[in-house]
C-alpha cells in the first residue's frame, strides 16, 4: 500500500521534473521543495484551520504554480537573458532550494509558536476518510496520478498550447521563428510543474511522516526516477518513478527481512545509488532498454 501511494506521488513529481528539464534544459533542484511547500499547506489547512485535508489540493496547485512562475520570471529568465549556461542556472536552482527550505523551516517554527503544536514531524493520517476498509489516500493518489497523466497527454498532443510547448522543447529558436511566444510557453510549463509538484506534496502527509526536510529527501528520489526514465521522456518518467518507488519501499522491506532492521536506515541511499548507476551504465535509462527489447523481438520476427 505504502509503495503504491509513494510511487504515485513520486510519479507526479517526476513528470514535473522531466517537463522542466525538457523545456528549460536545467535540472531543477528546487523541485522537491515545492512538495515541501505542499506539505505545509496541508498542515495549515488541516491542523490550523481545521478543514478537510483534501481541500488543500487546489490551494496547493495554485500556490505551487505561482511559486514556479515567480522562480521562472525572477531568476531563471533573468539568468537566461544574461546568457548564463546550464551550470549557472543549476547553481541558481540550488540557491533557490536552500532559500525555500530555510523559509519552510522558519514557517514551521512560526506555526509551532502560534499554535503550540509540534510542527516538525507530523502526519495527517487520522484526518483521512475510509473506503472499503482502506485509507482514502490510496484511491485519491492513484486516480489523481492517472488523471494527471491522461490530462497531460491530452494537453501535449491535442491542444495548441501543448503542441507549441513540444515545439519549444525541440528547438526554442525555431519555435520563436514560427511565431510561438516561447517565454509564455516556459511560464506555463513552470506553472504546471510547480502546481503538480505542490499537489503531490499536499497529499504526502496523508500517508507518510512529514517534516521540513521532506522536500530535500524527495528531490533525490525524483531525480533518480526521472533519470531512470530517460530524462527526456515524460512517459519514461512515470515508469521510472514507479520502479524506483517500488524498489525503495518494497526493496527496503525485503532487505530488512533478510538482513535485519539495521538496513532500514539506508533506505534513502537507494535513489542515490540508482542515480549513479543509471548515469554510469546508460544515461538514457529504461526507454533505451525497452527499445532494445523491441528491436530484438522485431529482429527475431524477421
Amino acid at each position, binding site marked *: 500500500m505504502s509503495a503504491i501511494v509513494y510511487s504515485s506521488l513520486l510519479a507526479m513529481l517526476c513528470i514535473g521534473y522531466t517537463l522542466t528539464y525538457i523545456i528549460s534544459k*536545467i*535540472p531543477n*533542484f528546487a523541485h522537491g521543495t515545492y512538495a515541501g511547500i505542499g506539505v505545509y499547506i496541508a498542515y495549515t489547512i488541516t491542523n490550523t484551520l481545521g478543514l478537510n485535508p483534501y481541500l488543500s489540493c487546489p490551494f496547493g496547485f495554485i500556490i505551487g504554480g505561482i511559486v514556479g512562475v515567480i522562480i521562472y520570471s525572477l*531568476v531563471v529568465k*533573468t*539568468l537566461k537573458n*544574461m546568457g*548564463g*549556461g*546550464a*551550470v*549557472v542556472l*543549476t*547553481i*541558481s536552482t*540550488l*540557491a*533557490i*532550494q*536552500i*532559500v525555500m*527550505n*530555510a*523559509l519552510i*523551516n*522558519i514557517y514551521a*517554527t*512560526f506555526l509551532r*509558536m502560534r499554535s503550540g503544536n509540534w510542527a516538525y514531524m507530523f502526519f495527517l493520517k487520522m484526518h483521512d476518510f475510509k473506503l472499503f476498509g482502506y485509507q482514502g489516500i490510496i484511491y485519491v493518489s492513484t486516480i489523481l496520478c492517472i488523471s494527471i497523466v491522461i490530462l497531460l497527454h491530452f494537453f501535449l498532443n491535442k491542444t495548441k498550447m501543448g503542441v507549441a510547448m513540444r515545439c519549444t522543447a525541440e528547438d526554442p529558436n525555431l519555435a520563436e521563428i514560427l511565431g510561438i511566444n516561447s517565454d509564455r510557453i516556459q511560464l506555463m510549463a513552470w506553472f504546471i510543474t510547480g502546481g503538480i509538484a505542490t499537489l503531490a506534496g499536499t497529499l504526502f502527509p496523508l500517508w507518510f511522516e512529514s517534516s521540513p526536510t521532506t522536500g530535500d529527501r524527495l528531490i*533525490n528520489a525524483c*531525480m*533518480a526516477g526521472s*533519470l531512470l526514465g530517460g530524462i527526456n521522456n515524460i512517459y519514461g518518467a512515470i515508469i521510472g518513478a514507479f520502479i524506483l518507488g517500488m524498489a525503495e519501499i518494497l526493496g527496503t522491506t525485503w532487505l530488512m527481512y533478510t538482513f535485519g532492521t*539495521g538496513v532500514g*536506515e*539506508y533506505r*534513502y*541511499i537507494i*535513489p*542515490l*545509488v540508482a*542515480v*549513479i548507476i543509471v*548515469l*554510469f551504465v546508460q*544515461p538514457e535509462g529504461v526507454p533505451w532498454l525497452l527499445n532494445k527489447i523491441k528491436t530484438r523481438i522485431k529482429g527475431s520476427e524477421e
Partner: protein
Amino acid sequence: LVDASLVRAAIDIAMFFGLYVTIAMALNFQYGNAGVPNMGSAVSVAFGAYVVSGICLRLMYVIGMKAGIEIGPDYVYDNLVNVANMNTYFSKHPLLGIALFLFAMTMGLVLGTLFGYVVSLPAIRLRSTYLMITMIAMSEASQIIGRNYVPISGGTLGVRIPNVFAFYSGDRSLLLAIITLAVGLVSFFVFKNMLNSPYGRLMRSLRENEVTLNSVGKNAIGIRRNILMFSSGITSLIGVLLVFYFSFSTATNYTMSNFTYWPWLMLMVGGPGNNTGTFLGAFLVIAMRRLITIYKWEINQFFWFPIAFLEQVILGVVLLVILMFKPEGLIPEKALHIRGIDYNKIIEEDIRIDWKQEKKRAGESKQGIMDKIKSVIKITHKN
C-alpha cells in the same frame, strides 16, 4: 591586556579562513579554471575526516596498547576514556604526537587523491549538469553512510580524537590555526603556479572549448580526472585538519551546506577563475559567518526562529544576487601574467599587414582597415 574572548574569536576566524579558503581555491581550480562544476567537496572533506577517525585513531590505539596503556575494546562507548588516556601519553611523547599528525595529513592527501580517482570513475564521462547531479548524490550518500555505519566515524554519537599537541600547555587551536594558514598559503602558491604552467593553460582551454581540445589531440577526460584527483586530495587534507581542530568527528558535521554551498558562495563572491578574488570572498563570508555564530545569542533576540535558517537564507539570497547582478564576482578574472610574454605585443605581431597591397586589393581607405584591425583586437581581448 587584550580580551581573551577576542583572541579566541580571532584564532577561530583565522582557522576557519584557512580551512575554507583552501576548499574554495580547490573549487576555483576546478570550476573557475577548468569548468568542472564539482558539487562534491563535502564528500572529500568527509573522507579526510573518516581517514582520521577510522584509520589514524585505531593506529593511535595500537601504539597506545603497545606502550602499555589501557585501551577499551568498544570503538564508541570506551572512546572518552581511551582518548583521555592517550592524551596523557601524548603529553609525555611530543615527537610521537607530531609524527602521528604528519602521518594523518599524508594519509589524508594520498588516500584523498585515490578517493578522487574512485569518485571520478562514474563522474568523469558526464558533462556539467549531470556531473553536478552525481556529485550531489554522492554527498548525500556519504552523509547517510557516515551516520549509520558506526566503525568509520562513530555514527550519530561521533568519536573524539586524541590531542596530538598535548605537550603544548597553551591554546592548541593556535598551533592548528597557524598550520592551517600555512597549508592555505602553500596551496595558494601551488595553484597559482599550476595555473601559469602549460597544464594550467590546457585546463583553461578545456573550460573554453572541449571540442577544440579533443580535436588537437588532448585527452579531455584524462585532464578532468587529474583535476578531480588533485583537488580531492587537497580537500581531504582540509578534512583531516578540521577533525584535529574540533578534536571530534561526526558525520553530521560534513553537510553539503557547510562544505559545498558555502565554499561555492565564496568562489562566486570573489569571482571564479581568480585566486585573489577567492581569498577576498572567503574572508568576507567567513568573517560574517563566524561573527554571526559568536554573537548568536544577541542576534537571536530579534528573531523568533533559530539563526541557522537565517544563515541559509543569506547564503541563498547572496548567491542569487551575485549570479544575477555580478556574475564575474568582486574581482573579475584577468589574463594570465607570464613573465617575458607581452600579450599586447603578440596581438600586434600577429596582424601584420602590407599596407600598399591591402589598399590596392580592397580599395579601402587606411582608416577603414585600421578600424577592422581594432575590432579584431577587441575580440581577441575579450576571449
